[in-house]
């Protein structure tokens, strides 16, 4: 399979996952002026979809190996899947089942698969940055030949840990790739007017961290930049920064209709769907429409199966509420 096909397949799997999760969440969270549905949704908690941003996850993560580590954001399904997690166990987690990655304890906002180096989504904006920095520091101290990929949003670049983490990574010359997934919005607030100066790349450069800015909807561009940057990091060059500009197709959470956005802007962005872009390129490369459609169907089928398994999966035991917490003093009293 050629590189672009592989990238496309991964993006399609993420899209299929996000679409299915979105439907399963309707009527879940009661917010954004909406009441919760009478019948509880299959996905109850807040669901931050990465629909439209798949090229960033795919283009970066195909340049990682299993032993590399990754920290993510509240919008973490794509990164998790791209790092090699099993969509069935992910869907089980979103459904709050015992067979989910976190045994139903975390849900979407804490999706993780430590076994493939995916150290977790995070409910706190920018909180993954110090954690990723420390993980990279550990790799260096322990002389392990791997790297860390640290994803965060454009909104995160205005929080203190962004400065603290990037400074630290450069001071200790750590093997870490910072990836700003810039969808130009922070919840309901356009990020531009909240961000001084030339933005994230300029901030990285002020810390002497080399940075590349790419069209984050062009998966080949993301892939190429990631290839270069990860190679430099693996060669001992210290931290690197990737600024990928993309767009969030959905509301902030799945039940947010996103009415605060200009419909013209949204319509224009939808035309630049990374899947449409990649499909066009595949066709140009001579891959047949049938072959591409087959990838799409395969991805959807995979997620259909995941949904079915998740819906049938068992709930956590009550007893498990008291597990995975302190050993010290456990069993003595809660």
């Amino acid at each position: 399979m050629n590189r672009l096909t592989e990238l496309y397949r991964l993006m399609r799997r993420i899209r299929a996952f996000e679409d299915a999760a979105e439907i399963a969440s309707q009527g879940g969270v009661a917010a954004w002026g909406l009441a919760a549905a009478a019948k509880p949704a299959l996905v109850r908690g807040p669901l931050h979809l990465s629909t439209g941003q798949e090229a960033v996850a795919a283009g970066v993560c195909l340049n990682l190996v299993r032993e590399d580590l990754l920290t993510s954001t509240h919008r973490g399904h794509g990164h998790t899947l791209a790092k090699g997690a099993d969509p069935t166990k992910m869907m089980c987690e979103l459904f709050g089942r015992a067979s989910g990655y976190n045994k139903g304890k975390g849900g979407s906002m804490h999706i993780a698969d430590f076994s493939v180096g995916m150290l977790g989504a995070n409910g706190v904006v920018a909180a993954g940055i110090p954690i990723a920095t420390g993980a990279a520091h550990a790799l260096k101290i322990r002389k392990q030949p791997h790297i860390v990929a640290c994803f965060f949003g454009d909104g995160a670049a205005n929080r203190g840990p962004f400065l603290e983490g990037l400074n630290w990574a450069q001071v200790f010359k750590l093997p870490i790739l910072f990836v700003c997934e810039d969808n130009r919005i922070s919840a309901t607030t356009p990020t531009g007017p909240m961000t001084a100066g030339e933005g994230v790349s300029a901030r990285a450069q002020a810390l002497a961290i080399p940075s590349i800015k790419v069209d984050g909807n062009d998966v080949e561009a993301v892939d190429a930049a990631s290839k270069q940057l990860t190679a430099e990091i693996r060669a001992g060059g210290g931290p690197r920064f990737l600024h990928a500009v993309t767009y969030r197709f959905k509301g902030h959470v799945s039940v947010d209709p996103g009415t605060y956005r200009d419909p013209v802007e949204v319509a224009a962005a939808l035309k630049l769907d990374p899947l449409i872009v990649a499909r066009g390129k595949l066709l140009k490369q001579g891959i047949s429409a049938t072959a591409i459609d087959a990838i799409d169907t395969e991805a959807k089928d995979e997620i259909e199966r995941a949904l079915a398994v998740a819906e049938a999966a068992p709930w956590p035991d009550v007893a498990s509420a008291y597990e995975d917490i302190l050993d010290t003093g456990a069993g003595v009293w809660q």
Partner: protein
Amino acid sequence: MSTMSYAQAACLALQEVMRADANVVALGEDLGRGGVFGQYRGLPQEFGPERIIDTPISEANIMGAAVGMALAGLRPVVEMRVIDFALCAMDEIINQAAKNRYMFGGQGRVPLVARMPIGIWSASAAQHSQSLEAWFAHMPGLVVVTPATPQDNYGLLKSSLASGDPVIYMEHKELWGVEGEVTAGVEVPLGKANVLCEGSDLTIVTWSRGVGVALEALSTKAFKGIRPEIIDLRTLWPWDRDAVFKSVAKTGRLLVVHEAVQVAGFGAEVAASAAEATGCKVRRLGSPRIPVGYAQVLENEARLSPAKIVAAAEALLKQ
């Protein structure tokens, strides 16, 4: 008097105060669209972006800037979205806001209201469900307010905005949509509890979301033969010791109920104080010392319920 939600009651209080005092401003993320819980709805239209201020995602600076604003003559309302994010602004709240007046010998005052919604809500799991009122009650220099009803959210927010000292104002996320009658102009004083029903067998002291759960137990007759006196503390600092001690003098038994973790929760303060002052029998009901889980069955372990309150009351009567 009119019917409105807990969120709308807060909007009304803030609107009235902002109309009366040009120095009152609100700042936080996403406020320009009325706040993610609608707790500022309508205000951006009326007061514009200079007074309902959209900020960068930077909780530390939001809180720290509010301290500076207060020192320079404004009366800021700070929105932290959920208390869990206020953890990103702890130095600013504790070392800067709470201590300022004392540490500088009264040279300055920090009249700010920091709103930081608490509680379990909509499967939001470990990082969006905390109730940390005990932390702030422990901290010299802070007023701590936990409204339970639309009327109280209106009245306590108005009183808080009139406080010359920093107020930690904790709305409960599960209460945003709760409707009730609100009489404009009725302020609720800080430090005065609300005796919700009289009883003789035990005193139940609670606040915030606990109030509705206790009243649900009452209205569904879950208490069976037991007649509890139920008190909504409303503010945790100052808290209404007189009202509580008066009640336990009558009932001889105190049950403190809160959604926060029981260990070192504010229930311990109320129970210990009552035991010291009156020698009454005490008991607490709070969350086990576990993070809030995502799945319903896990989340429920950390949640209050009428059944849990009744069971605790029965246990206290046997104690």
